[in-house]
């Protein structure tokens, strides 16, 4: 490995990258508007309400008269200084199942919880089966010489693009 390549192994370069990334992310963190009378806020709220007259559209998207009425109601409530939640609840009280975001309490919250549990469970199962496999280990331990040979062979192959080595064997 030449000098240029050893640079890449230095930890500070990678730490520097991480620091730059964090600084950039922190400097540009933004949130959606929660107050004011901007159209952006209006449509952000409207996008969370189902258009009751249409199928598969939100109040933000629909041109139906009732959706236009909803939007003007949102606008007037925004002018009255209501919060996003207050405005959403206003509609939820009048129309059943009108909010496109499922509730975070009650039975409805299961739709949030189940995937998290399932994904975590799958990941754990996978990690466990990998661990078991590895701890069982190969029947015969390779000698250091074997490993050195493999290392050389692997190095030779991977210094070439690994894609091409797969290519020759994988394509029929």
């Amino acid at each position, binding site marked *: 490995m030449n000098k240029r390549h050893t640079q890449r192994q230095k930890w500070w370069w990678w730490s520097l990258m991480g620091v730059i990334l964090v600084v950039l992310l922190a400097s540009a963190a933004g949130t959606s508007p929660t107050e004011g009378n901007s159209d952006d806020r209006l449509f952000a709220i409207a996008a969370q309400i189902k258009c*009751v*007259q249409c199928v598969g559209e939100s109040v933000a998207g629909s041109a139906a*008269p*009732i959706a*236009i*009425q*909803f939007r*003007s*109601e949102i606008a007037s409530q925004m002018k009255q200084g209501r919060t996003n939640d207050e405005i959403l609840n206003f*509609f939820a*009280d*009048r*129309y*059943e199942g009108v909010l496109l975001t499922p509730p975070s309490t009650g039975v409805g919250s299961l739709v949030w919880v189940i995937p998290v549990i399932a994904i975590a469970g799958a990941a754990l*199962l*996978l990690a466990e*089966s990998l661990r078991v*496999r590895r701890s069982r280990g190969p029947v015969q331990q390779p000698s250091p010489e074997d490993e050195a040979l493999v290392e050389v062979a692997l190095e030779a192959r991977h210094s070439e693009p690994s894609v091409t080595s797969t290519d020759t064997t994988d394509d029929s």
Partner: protein
Amino acid sequence: MSADTPRRAPVIAGIVGVAVLALVVLFLVSPKGGETKVTSPLLGNLAPELAGTTLTGEPFNLDSARGQWVLVNFFATWCPPCVAEHPELIKLNESTASTGLRVVSVAFDDSSANVEKFFADNGGDWPVLTQGTGAVALDYGVKGLPESFLIDPAGTVVAKFEGGITADALQRYVADSTAGGS
């Protein structure tokens, strides 16, 4: 990832099978798109405020109609099913003497001029509200047009009708409720 533990395969297959079976059963019991039931959070509750000036310039307040059955009808002249429903409303209104039922119409997203012309052309002489009705429609949870709410003498919303009503059905409904109630 049961590939490496074959004995798990039947178990996992069984679980997947049961899950899919549950899904199939669910689809079988689900109501189909067309037959959604009419629900409203208003049912059993006091009717939201409804007041204003009618087309003919008289003041109207729903509260003053306490002690009477009231049908609040949301409509628009640009909505074909509403136009189709109109004769039934006329029929219903004409028979108020026998049932003591009042009709009040609320025009949604429509101009007073249009509504005036509509009533002049098609008949009907019950109170019609046209101004500031958008907010009222939201208070009543109106989804589409036409939509009607039946309010009992105590001022409680007892029924909601999505789509056109018929005079006969409504009268029967009121008659049944009065008979059952007394």
